[in-house]
């Protein structure tokens, strides 16, 4: 945990503790105590270092607990003793009054109630003290229990804090119930698409419906600091957006209405909090300074508050905000029709309903507007309409949210299982220790202690363990989160999920800790407090019975079940990786260097894109160690796929559509060579396919089969929907896997970059140098050609390809580690149970052997007993895995969730290990000499 986080956290704990103090004390000194504790901690840190400060905090937390107890004692002493008044105490006014006004039963009742509270409080404190003493007396046990609980609780807290950040924590909007997102529903099936700027203007005309209608968009921009250019995440927003949401700038102001009227006129910028901290170190005097954004000085007018991240992609942190009408300036004013063309859909709209307006009413009215637009602009709006969604129902975007909720469920299930495992493990320990404490408890029962009281006391101990475990677990969680953020794949912009541990997470953690404490402690507590009082007190060894083992065996079976579930999950992902590795993707997976460049964000006018990319490729090719350089807007099996709608003459588009939606790559003449994609007919893209010559397209085998079955595709035509540009088919290329290694081949069009330039290009270099070196070479070339070019990423082919399998790899790793952990615990448990059973049955074994049973029979008997437990666990685990595996289907590549190989091999492996664990003590049992065994009791 970083220092401010830690400070906030302990201060929060102190605040909680103050609630344990009498209200009068809390009101009187609460704020001062918090203040002083912080000041003292700061001083200790300065004088003696961080470790001393940490110790100081722990001491403070304990000290306040002690003080709370003392204050309650004092509060109860000063308020209680009306009936115990002794003559020598002065009678105060208060007391005289009480006596006069309440001679009735009310006073007695109150007194009784107070007494009951006092007794309950006393009991809790007594239990706590006793529990603390018990834990301190067995430091080894306490340490192991705390560590294992910390891992279990920490894993839960870590995952939950991410889930909380992405799915639960409400955005800091004012009266969110009045807000609605207005998406555009389009023909290609997306219900939550972007809208056009003209749509915004139309929606604003519905004045009796909305107080305000605002919009935002997401862009890449470039900022120049000194001699270097950095990509930044920019969000153009309408001037009224922040007031509409009820968000005020943390520093300075938000945009003014006049700054959002004339396109490109007002170069003002608001910084995101993170960017302000990162680049300006939180300097509060930056207002009025300028930022070199897209080659233009933008004046800083404000800074956003910390809790406000991004509207466009919550979870990412927007670096800077600009007025909506400055959008075109970000790309060198190269976007004609950005504000006027209804087909250009790049903004998301959000509106605040008038007080009396219900969402249903708004939906109906907006649908009316959609109808009207259909009539006025049939060519654009025929298959397009607005979709009103209440903002509280939106986290990222409704269709994405479902997927996220699904992933969240999966992760929570996994860590939940880990916690359950920890609890069973702890319960096993407690059962074992219960045997030691039997005598103590028998004595107390014999002396008249109520069983409920004893159970409460034992539970206090485990819940306390849980709470201590959760405190350590918070540290574990923070560590795990840092680790996980390190794992995050290289994307355009670093994903910085704000997974801070806030109140919700703390409440969750405490609830989990308490539940874990109860879960781990309840069964052992009930079991331990039910001893055979008489025989225990007489110190009789309870031999010849295996009664005490039922619960233990149950726990072991449960652990085996959990390990089956986790291992089956891990196994499925390992199979996924295996299958994916065996697939022929249709291109060479040999490693190479890649650089992504955003030409538009670099401020290059569109007509210079082709010449610039050609220069980049040429320069790179001329360098030593570089064998080939290809260029494309996309690479198969990596994130980001471009699609467009095409009309294929003579082939009907799918129902309800105007064209075929096909993936396209805009490539240069060397791309096929650099990627090792084979041509099966015709020619590839050449340097002669330029602007001005006939547009060409190379289609994939599947595209050829799909659109021209049984005919020669060469010479046919493909028309881009919208621009109506006609492409002539000049070649057929081998199929490649585009999105997933297990996909069925899909149609793919390769266009000539010179004829269809796009803003986003990737240069791919192959050669003798290492992929990293090649990528660095490419970067240097880009810098040398134009140091204003925005480099979005510098990566390698291997990294790109691994991204597709990243979730599988991560899942296989996590499930594998947890699964092996579960297996180990289960096997240790099994070994313990079998050993214990064997030691209990020594006498029986002796008699059997004396009667002529041979070694094999004895081993068989013991192992059979143990395998009973194992089989119960395996069966339970398999049933659970059967259902849970279905949850994983979305992530599995080329493997069925109920993959027979995994479902058979995992239980077999587990049974094998279990056999071994049972065999060792069984063998020992068979070595028992009958004489010795019979003498045993």
């Amino acid at each position: 945990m970083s220092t401010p986080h830690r400070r906030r956290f302990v201060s929060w704990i102190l605040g909680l503790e103050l609630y344990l103090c009498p209200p009068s004390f809390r009101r009187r000194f609460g704020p001062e105590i918090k203040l002083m504790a912080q000041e003292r901690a700061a001083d200790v840190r300065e004088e003696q270092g961080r470790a001393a400060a940490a110790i100081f905090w722990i001491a403070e937390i304990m000290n306040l607990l002690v003080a709370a107890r003392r204050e309650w004692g004092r509060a109860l002493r000063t308020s209680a003793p009306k009936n115990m008044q002794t003559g020598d105490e002065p009678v105060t006014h208060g007391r005289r009054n009480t006596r006069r006004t309440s001679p009735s039963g009310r006073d007695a009742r109150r007194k009784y109630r107070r007494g009951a509270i006092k007794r309950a409080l006393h009991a809790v404190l007594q239990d706590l003290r006793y529990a603390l003493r018990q834990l301190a007396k067995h430091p080894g046990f306490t340490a192991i229990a705390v560590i294992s609980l910390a891992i279990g609780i920490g894993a839960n807290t870590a995952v939950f804090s991410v889930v909380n950040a992405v799915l639960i924590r409400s955005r800091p909007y004012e009266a969110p119930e009045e807000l609605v997102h207005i998406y555009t529903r389009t023909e290609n099936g997306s219900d939550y698409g972007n809208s056009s700027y003209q749509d915004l203007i139309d929606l604003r005309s519905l004045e009796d419906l909305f107080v305000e209608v605002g919009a935002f968009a997401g862009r890449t921009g470039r900022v120049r600091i000194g001699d270097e250019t950095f990509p930044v995440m920019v969000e153009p927003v309408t001037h009224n957006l922040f007031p509409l949401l009820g968000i005020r700038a943390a520093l300075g102001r938000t945009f003014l209405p006049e700054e959002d009227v004339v396109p490109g006129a007002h170069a003002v910028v608001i910084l995101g909090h993170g960017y302000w901290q990162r680049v300006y170190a939180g300097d509060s005097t930056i207002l009025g300074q300028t930022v070199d954004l897209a080659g233009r000085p933008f004046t800083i007018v404000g800074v956003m508050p910390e809790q406000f991240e991004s509207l466009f992609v919550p979870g990412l942190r927007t670096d800077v905000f600009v007025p909506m009408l400055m959008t075109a300036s970000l790309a060198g004013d190269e976007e004609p029709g950005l504000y006027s063309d209804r087909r250009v859909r790049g903004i998301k709209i959000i509106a605040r309903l008038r007080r009396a307006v219900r969402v249903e009413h708004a939906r109906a009215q907006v649908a009316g507007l959609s109808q009207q637009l259909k009539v006025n602009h049939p060519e654009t709006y025929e298959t397009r309409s607005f979709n009103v969604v209440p903002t509280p129902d939106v986290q990222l975007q409704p269709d994405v949210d479902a997927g996220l909720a699904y992933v969240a469920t999966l992760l929570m299930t996994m860590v939940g299982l880990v916690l359950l495992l920890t609890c069973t493990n702890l319960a096993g320990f407690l059962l074992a220790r219960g045997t030691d404490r039997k005598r103590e408890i028998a004595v107390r029962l014999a002396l008249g202690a109520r069983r409920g009281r004893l159970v409460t006391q034992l539970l206090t101990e485990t819940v306390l363990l849980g709470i201590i475990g959760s405190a350590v677990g918070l540290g574990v969680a923070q560590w795990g989160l840092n680790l996980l953020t390190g794992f995050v794949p290289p994307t355009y912009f670093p994903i910085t999920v704000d997974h801070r541990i806030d109140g919700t997470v703390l409440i969750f953690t405490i609830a989990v800790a308490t539940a874990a404490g109860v879960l781990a402690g309840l069964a052992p507590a009930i079991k331990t407090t039910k001893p055979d009082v008489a025989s225990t007190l007489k110190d009789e060894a309870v031999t010849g019975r295996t009664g005490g083992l039922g619960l233990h065996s149950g726990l072991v079976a449960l652990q085996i079940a959990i390990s089956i579930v986790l291992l089956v999950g891990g196994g499925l992902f390992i199979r996924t990786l295996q299958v994916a590795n065996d697939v022929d993707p249709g291109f060479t997976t040999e490693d190479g260097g890649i650089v992504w460049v955003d030409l538009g964000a670099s401020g290059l006018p569109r007509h210079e894109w082709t010449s610039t990319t050609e220069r980049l490729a040429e320069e790179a090719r001329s360098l030593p160690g570089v064998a080939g350089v290809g260029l494309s807007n996309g690479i198969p099996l990596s994130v980001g796929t471009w699609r467009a709608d095409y009309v294929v003459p003579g082939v009907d588009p799918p129902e309800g559509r105007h064209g075929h939606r096909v993936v396209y790559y805009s490539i240069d003449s060397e791309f096929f060579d650099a990627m090792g994609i084979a041509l099966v007919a015709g020619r590839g893209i050449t340097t002669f396919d330029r602007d001005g010559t006939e547009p060409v397209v190379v289609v994939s085998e599947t595209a050829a089969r799909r659109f021209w079955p049984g005919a020669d595709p060469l010479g046919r035509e493909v028309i881009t929907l919208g621009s109506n540009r006609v492409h002539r088919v000049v070649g057929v290329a081998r199929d490649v896997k585009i999105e997933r290694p297990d996909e069925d081949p899909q149609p793919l069009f390769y266009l000539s970059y010179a004829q269809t330039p796009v803003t986003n290009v990737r240069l791919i270099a192959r050669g003798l140098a290492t992929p990293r070196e090649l990528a660095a070479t490419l970067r240097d070339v880009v810098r040398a050609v134009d140091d204003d070019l925005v480099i979005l990423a510098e990566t390698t082919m291997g990294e790109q390809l691994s991204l597709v399998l990243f979730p599988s790899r991560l899942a296989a790793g996590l499930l594998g580690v947890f699964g092996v952990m579960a297996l180990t615990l289960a096997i240790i448990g099994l070994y313990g149970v079998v050993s214990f059973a064997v030691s209990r049955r020594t006498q029986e074994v002796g008699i059997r052997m004396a009667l002529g049973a041979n070694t094999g029979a004895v081993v068989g008997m013991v192992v059979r007993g143990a395998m009973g437990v194992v089989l119960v666990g395996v069966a339970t685990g398999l049933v659970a895995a059967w259902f849970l595996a279905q949850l994983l289907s979305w992530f599995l590549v080329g493997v069925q969730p109920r993959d027979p190989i995994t479902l058979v091999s995992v239980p077999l492996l587990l049974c094998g290990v279990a056999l071994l664990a049972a065999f060792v003590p069984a063998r020992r049992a068979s070595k028992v000499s009958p004489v010795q065994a019979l003498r045993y009791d």
Partner: protein
Amino acid sequence: MHRSKDVSQALPLTHLSFHILLALATQDLHGYAVIKAVKSNPANPLNPGTGTFYSAIGRMLDEGLIREVEPPADESTDPRRRYYSITDFGREVLAAETRRLHALVQFAQAAVATSSTQK
């Protein structure tokens, strides 16, 4: 507020109360300044926890040994900070406690001297 004017009832003072009164004997201080003064007492440095400290402050306020005062006008200070001052009664108790301790020390010295001569 319960305020007993009988000095003997307030005796003996706890260690911490004694030191708090000592710290406040010369000037009015806020809580943390009192702790600093208590900690820096060369004769017997104490380092009470914040909870313990305020527990003692609360008791002493109730007993009328100290009282809360306005912060000095020349100091700009956190509104959560509160200043304390010793009362006349507090001074009497401090003096009485000092006498008691002095007597105790004298008695102890005599006892130690006797035991060492007996050896």
